[in-house]
């Protein structure tokens, strides 16, 4: 690396501690890093590693209970300890930031053009009309169609990807020397992610902006970064050029992290097809939400089935109807037309006790383990609840024994039984959800993005537990996921959904390696692989 180039961001011995009710918690311990002009440094690590804290510290945006020390210089200005007025002059002009969640990052009541114009006028003495014109130009630059009309839109009238483009337009409005992007594509679909990454890359290359990219996604790192710094527990454990770190990691933790990342593979055999009668079967199911002209066709003639012992991956972008399909299978949404049979019985024709008995054969694991477990119940109570509902005759001792047995199945230590869900880690909580889903020995497990809220290393153990238990217990699994690499590893068959329809379905390997539909092909091409060399070739359009 050329040491001659200017450093737009220089962090030296940065320490950040958070004051909490139980005392001070260190978040970042003595880290040093720098970003040159026209280069991208990726700061990677799992949740709680302190990577976002570093990004916020560089903008002087740390929350009120944070205490920072050390030196953070942005284009020659010391940020740590600077006053609000000085920081306000810096933010949006010298350094800008793009955030993770485009849905909430914009003021819902202000037109997007006005929000961009505000950033312009914060730093340059332009009139309203001039700033508004420039805002439209910026919208054009970030690839928003019909920018004149779109500038007058409110954020809720734009898609997630368009909102993120607006946030990027705000960030580049005053041509900053440093752009900090904190998980800029985590909340977006893969195809949109690819577009946003392309946009950021192009903008950075055009203007020589230095980029600090905070992410947990190794594919994004391979796609975008020049150098990488790996964070663990508030420290940087390894730093170097992207090829070095991703292909020849030196630190034990980096190796572990990379090994846990699910990768798309480009060859493989289909497993033998299952012949048993399906545990769940959707036939030509249609679901509409709302009435009149605003009604949305959530599902439009969807047919799929899951057989005992097999996992069917349900993939597609947000809004494609995959979660709706899972809910129909769970009996939570009655279809407007078409049939749902569970274990060979038509769900629409069974009522009362029969229906309950039928549904007790289905276990469910949802995406957010915090939201889906009752915070006032202990782990043991959470797991025992389905037994109380469906096995009324069971004695308390039998119930306790069954709960202990299931917790052992999902590899949770007995000591955790009395704790509340909030006292567990994310992975532990998700295993409690899994134990709860399995306690009635279901014949079907519906898992809706079960690992999306988890770090990759935790994701891997949870997925392994599910796969192992499936081999042991033989349940069918309907596995909803947006992550094609996970589905490829985990599912026997795959159903690709788009706009409420099944785009194509078939055995996992042949469907994902030789997709018949253009849509599936695009979906796969958009997934960045965590290998910078391969990723560069894929981006250049060479099929692998």
């Amino acid at each position: 690396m050329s040491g001659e180039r200017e450093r737009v961001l220089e962090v030296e011995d940065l320490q950040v501690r958070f004051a909490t009710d139980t005392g001070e918690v260190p978040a970042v311990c003595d880290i040093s890093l720098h970003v040159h002009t026209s280069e991208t440094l990726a700061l990677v690590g799992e949740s709680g590693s302190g990577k976002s804290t570093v990004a916020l510290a560089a903008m002087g945006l740390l929350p009120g209970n944070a205490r920072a020390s050390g030196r953070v210089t942005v284009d020659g200005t010391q940020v740590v300890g600077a006053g609000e007025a000085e920081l306000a002059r810096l933010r949006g002009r010298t350094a800008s930031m793009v955030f993770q969640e485009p849905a909430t990052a914009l003021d819902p009541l202000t037109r997007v053009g006005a929000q961009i114009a505000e950033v312009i006028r914060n730093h340059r003495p332009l009139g309203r009309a001039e700033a508004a014109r420039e805002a439209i130009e910026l919208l054009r630059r970030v690839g928003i169609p019909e920018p004149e009309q779109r500038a007058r839109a409110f954020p809720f009238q734009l898609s997630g990807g368009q909102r993120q483009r607006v946030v990027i337009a705000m960030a580049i409005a005053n041509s900053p020397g440093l752009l900090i992007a904190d998980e800029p594509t985590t909340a977006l679909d893969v195809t949109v992610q690819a577009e946003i990454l392309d946009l950021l890359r192009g903008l950075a290359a055009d203007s020589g902006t230095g980029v600090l990219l905070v992410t947990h996604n190794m594919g994004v790192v391979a796609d975008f970064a020049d150098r990488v710094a790996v964070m663990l527990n508030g420290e940087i454990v390894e730093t170097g050029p992207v090829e070095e770190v991703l292909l020849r990691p030196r630190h034990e933790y980096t190796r572990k992290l990379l090994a846990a990342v699910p990768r798309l593979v480009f060859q493989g055999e289909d497993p033998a097809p299952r012949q048993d009668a399906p545990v769940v079967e959707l036939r030509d199911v249609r679901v509409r939400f709302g009435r009149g002209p605003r009604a949305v066709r959530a599902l439009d003639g969807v047919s799929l089935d899951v057989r005992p012992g097999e996992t069917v991956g349900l993939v597609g972008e947000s809004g494609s109807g995959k979660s709706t399909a899972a809910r129909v299978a769970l009996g939570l949404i009655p279809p407007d037309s078409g049939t749902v049979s569970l274990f060979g019985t038509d769900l629409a024709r069974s009522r009362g006790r029969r229906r309950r008995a039928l549904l007790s054969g289905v276990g469910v694991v949802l995406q957010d383990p915090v939201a889906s477990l009752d915070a006032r119940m202990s782990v043991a109570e959470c797991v025992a609840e389905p037994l109380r509902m469906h096995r009324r005759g069971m004695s308390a001792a039998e119930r306790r024994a069954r709960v202990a047995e299931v917790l052992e199945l999902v590899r949770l230590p007995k000591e955790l039984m009395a704790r509340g869900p909030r006292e567990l880690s994310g992975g532990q909580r998700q295993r409690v959800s899994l134990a709860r889903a399995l306690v009635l020995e279901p014949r079907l497990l519906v898992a809706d993005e079960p690992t999306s809220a988890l770090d990759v290393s935790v994701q891997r153990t949870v997925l392994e537990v599910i796969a192992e238990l499936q081999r042991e217990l033989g349940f069918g699994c309907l596995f909803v996921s947006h992550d094609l690499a996970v589905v490829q590893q985990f599912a026997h068959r795959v159903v690709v959904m788009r706009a409420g329809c099944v785009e194509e379905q078939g055995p996992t390997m042949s469907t994902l390696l030789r997709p018949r539909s253009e849509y599936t092909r695009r979906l796969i091409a958009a997934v960045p692989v965590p290998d910078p060399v391969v990723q560069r070739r894929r981006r250049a359009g060479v099929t692998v």
Partner: protein
Amino acid sequence: METLAYLARRTAQALVVILIVTVVVFCLLHALPGGPARGILGPQATAQQIAAFDHDQGLDRPLPVQYVYYLRTLLHGDLGTSYTLNEAVSQLVGQRLPKTLVLTVLSAVVGLLLAVPLGMWQAVRRNKPADYVITTLSFVAYSTPVYFLGLILVLVFTQELNWFPSQAPQGDTPAQVFADPVALVLPVVTGAASMVAVFSRYMRAATLENLSEDYVRTARAGGSRQGAILFRHVFRNSLTPVIAMLGYYVPVLFGGALVVEQLFNYPGMGLLFWSAAQSSDYPVLLGCVLVISVATVVGTLLADVVQRIVDPRVKAGRA
């Protein structure tokens, strides 16, 4: 066009609500023991006199018939005739309503003008001495009964300090009332006190919630200063839930007027209602309740319309 259709739909709903209100009030009032004849003719009246009165007023007919009759006259703008004052109810209400509106609207405006900045200021200075002091005062103001607060104000500002008169302006028209603004101060302050207390709490909570929103961080990251963020973004976003609450606050304001008018001898609808309740003057009571319920329904309707204007998401059905 879309807004017109919305207004038509909401107005139709409002009419149904008002109809239900008239039924409920009608039933409640007729369930009271004694009946109006005894109240008007006094304890000395003979059974014959009472029967004659009941027949005269149509009170001996079945309740549903009385109700339908009542509704029919209502549609002609006729609210009946007062038993005790021998005047058309519509005329009585028509005279008093503007004065009560002056009092309640002034109280509401003064209350909001104080409550909104106070709440925002508290949110910005959260958990600092100023916040604690205002919070304590709010709870005191909210938990003090209106008549007690009014009495204390009268005692301090008219008896001890002699700053303001103890009576509200006595004029018959709003113009005459406004001619004596000094006399309006105490009634309006009394009426506004609980409003300030309640709405500064709402505003404080809404502002705090908005200050922790992501869009505030985005604005700061774009170099906007605290003041600009507060007034350009947080203010409007915090105001929407407060506007929604305003409509539901109309009956509370009228309830307050009942006490304030009594206390400051201000002959508005509150006083009218008060004396009518004491003499079982059914037509007047029904007239007042009807007017107040219409005001409430119109208030919520207005609040919804204002919200549609302030928050475009409401119109799109996204919020």
